[in-house]
């Protein structure tokens, strides 16, 4: 008999979080002034989606320019601005805020709390994010957008070679967002550490909470590295200092160490919460608990640690020593092991299950296969000599989009189909959802698979045009067509969101028959989240209530 009494909480006794001071208003001011984690979470997602539109339009412009060799659709400068803004937008203004939106919306609900540990700080993080995004885009109206690429290698990003103010806007905007992100990470850690409903032990935590919790440590450690590097670059540019200016003794390589010291953990920052969502969605639609809970959780910690020891795999072409390179090769390859553990556990969860192919589940399954492609091409980069050939080619562009689009974005789509009913009280249309799914799946592969081949043919990345070599034009054209299929997918999705918000089927509290605590309250949840938190006796409180005879605790392992 473990923990029966502990979980019982009386009416209105959800712990933690300050009580909402006012009922959230549906008015614009109500949203803007809100400190409610649910409203802030939704605002994060809406902002991320708007920027996804911008980043996507930038990508389409890039793809139009690249559709045929020797194209003159864009000037080289515009092209460079566009890919810099596309990469920066997608990473800092889409992937991060989207996942943060899910995190701040779901974490308090999943642990039975009323709100985040610091609701006002939460609002501050969000508005810093918005402010940073607006500042970045304001650069278009100042003297030109930044154009040194999303990792702004010095000395190209120094004032001697990037004299417009775009680079300064880039620095300031990332700094502002970086500060907001650190504050957000502190908030999530404090929330998970102190506001769990009684009996919600760490071993009972939903995996999404586990992964965002670990992820917050990753942010806490990684973002200051970026902030420090940005500050140095800014001092170089504004006060004529010499951190990264080789002409006066500074080191161009130091910037790379600093940037990737942040940059590699960063790419995991935008995948771990996606892993978390997948770990919630697959079991629910397989009607089985996650296979190997402990291993899925522990591998997250392993990934987090390893991710700080692999940064120099972005620098194999710099010409550092063999021993140095080999160390980073080993570390990079090792990351495949805990990630593989996850992939295999998700797959094993399907076995013996009763799979329901909702749109959410289809996106989750597509994630499983597509992310694997991206992960495997990542491993090929960890093999140093292969990297020497393929770094900075379209093979790399393919890798990063398979993990970002095939990973983060597909998982987020899955998450939106899954939690939309909770957020809004209405279901998304499944028939439009299927269209959205198939267009995304086909578009993704059409756009990015051929890029592997282009890379092998020797096409460098970040070129605004290219010579008319055999097959180059044809493959690029295919990739451009794929990008337009993705446009169709996003349009269907936006349509679905719009229509379903107004006319979608009523969802009820728990349309999927799911088992984590957010489904134990109304859709959308009341200001205080819960009127009553069900007893927590295992990892699946609602399942235990519905199927006492199959309750997890009876199996002895999930206590």
């Amino acid at each position, binding site marked *: 008999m473990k923990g029966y009494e502990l979980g019982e909480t009386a009416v209105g006794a959800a712990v933690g979080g300050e009580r909402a001071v006012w009922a959230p208003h549906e008015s614009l001011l109500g949203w803007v002034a809100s400190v409610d984690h649910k409203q802030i979470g939704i605002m994060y997602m809406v902002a991320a989606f708007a920027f996804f539109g911008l980043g996507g339009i930038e990508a389409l412009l890039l793809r139009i320019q690249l559709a045929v060799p020797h194209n003159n659709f864009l000037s080289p*400068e515009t092209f*460079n601005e566009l890919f810099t803004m596309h990469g920066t937008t997608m990473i800092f203004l889409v992937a991060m805020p989207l996942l943060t939106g899910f995190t701040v919306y779901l974490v308090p609900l999943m642990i039975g709390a009323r709100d985040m540990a610091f609701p006002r700080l939460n609002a501050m993080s969000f508005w810093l994010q918005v402010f940073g995004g607006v500042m970045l885009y304001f650069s278009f109206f100042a003297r030109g957008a930044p154009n040194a*690429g999303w990792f702004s*290698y010095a*000395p*190209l990003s120094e004032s001697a*070679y990037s004299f417009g103010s775009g680079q300064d806007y880039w620095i300031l905007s990332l700094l502002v967002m970086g500060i907001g992100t650190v504050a957000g990470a502190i908030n999530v850690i404090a929330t998970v550490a102190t506001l769990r409903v009684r009996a919600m032990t760490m071993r009972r935590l939903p995996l999404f909470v586990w992964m965002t919790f670990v992820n917050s440590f990753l942010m806490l450690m990684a973002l200051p590295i970026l902030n420090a590097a940005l500050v140095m670059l800014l001092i170089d540019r504004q006060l004529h200092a010499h951190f990264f200016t*080789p002409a006066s003794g*500074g080191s161009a*390589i130091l910037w790379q160490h600093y940037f990737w010291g942040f940059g590699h953990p960063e790419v995991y920052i935008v995948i771990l919460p996606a892993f978390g969502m997948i770990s919630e969605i697959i079991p629910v639609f*397989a009607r*089985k*608990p996650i*296979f*190997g*809970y402990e*291993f899925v959780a522990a591998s997250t910690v392993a990934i987090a640690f390893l991710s700080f020891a692999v940064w120099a795999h972005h620098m194999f*072409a*710099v*010409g550092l020593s*063999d021993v140095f390179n*080999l160390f980073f*090769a080993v570390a990079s390859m090792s990351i*495949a*092991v805990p990630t*593989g*553990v996850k*992939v295999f556990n998700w*797959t094993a969860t399907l*076995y*013996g299950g*009763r*799979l329901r192919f909702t749109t959410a589940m289809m996106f989750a*399954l597509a994630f*499983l296969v597509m992310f*694997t*492609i991206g992960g*495997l091409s990542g*491993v*090929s980069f960890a*093999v*140093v*000599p*292969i990297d*020497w*050939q393929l*770094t*900075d080619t379209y093979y790399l562009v393919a890798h990063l989009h398979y993990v970002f689009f095939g990973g983060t974005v597909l998982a987020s789509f899955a998450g939106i189909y899954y939690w939309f009913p909770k957020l809004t009280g209405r279901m998304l249309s499944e028939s439009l959802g299927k269209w959205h799914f198939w267009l995304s799946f086909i578009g993704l592969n059409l756009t990015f698979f051929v890029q592997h*081949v282009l890379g*092998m*043919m*020797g096409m460098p*990345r970040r070129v605004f*045009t290219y010579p008319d070599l*055999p*097959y180059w034009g044809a493959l690029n054209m295919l990739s451009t067509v794929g990008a337009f299929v993705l446009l169709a997918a996003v349009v269907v999705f936006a349509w679905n969101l719009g229509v379903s918000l107004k006319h979608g089927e009523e969802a009820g509290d728990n349309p999927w028959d799911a088992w984590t605590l957010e489904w134990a309250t109304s859709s959308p949840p009341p200001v205080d989240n819960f009127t009553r938190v069900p007893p927590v006796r295992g990892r699946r409180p609602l399942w235990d209530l519905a*199927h006492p005879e*199959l309750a*997890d605790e009876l199996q002895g*392992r999930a206590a």
Partner: protein
Amino acid sequence: MTALDTLNPMSPLAAAIAKLFAAVLVILGLIFALVAVLVVFAIVRYRERPGAQLPRQILGSDRLEIVWTAIPILLLAVIFVFTVKVMHAASPSAASRSPDLLVVGHQWWWEVNYLKSGVVTANELHLPIGQRVLIRLESADVIHDFWVPRLGRKLDAIPGHPGYLWLEADAPGVYLGACAEFCGAEHAWMRFEVVAQPPAQFAAWEQAQLAVPPVPRPAPALAGRKLFVARTCVNCHRFAGTSADRHVGPDLTHLADRRMLAGGAVANTPSTLAQWLKDPNSIKPDSHMPNFQLSDAEVAELAAYLESTK
């Protein structure tokens, strides 16, 4: 398959990588096939059927966890061993040898110096086949990256941090190279060519490059030579036999022999050369070569001069 340059090597250095790449692709392909088959099988086999029971609630299996931790580790260990081997084969240590060539990346062209013979050229590099030459790689401004896919690894050209790179070609031919690190506006047109020749032909080429062109006879070329000095071309370019000896722009002594212009943006023909002199930006927007607002006559004279060394 000839278009897949990285898998179609033309030197032992590149061949080592290509073989490894192919093998790794096969291994990774198999892993992918495994995952895909497992998922597809589950999709087919375990789809929900009407009236089905609740499935058995399986929480995990330590034995399976060990299996899918251990097997990847073993596979990766094997890949790692080959990684070490191929690293040495594809990029041998350069400590024992002084470099044969100095290659300097500029925004957006490559300066090539043959250290032993003193030949200077740009965006075109000649090699005797079957011989391994050692390149010292530098940068005059930002980071560039020297890459000839069919001949071997790429290496960054980093200001303040010279690098060393071996280059070798098995068979005669022209191999396309590119700058692979983003270096600003015209990164796309920072291409170059490696012309691999039998040793005798290479020696002849080297001799020809060393020849100092005589003062040209025909009138337009002679006028062009005067313009070349008057119009400050000498401030940025090198031209053997004149006062011009700067490396802000490419060496122009034997420009007429080169196959392409402006980092590969166009083929080197009299008409493209004239267009370049008239308005470099019309060929390569943002290039660091100024537009001198030359008249058509001046352009013709300058072009005649630059062509006269053929």
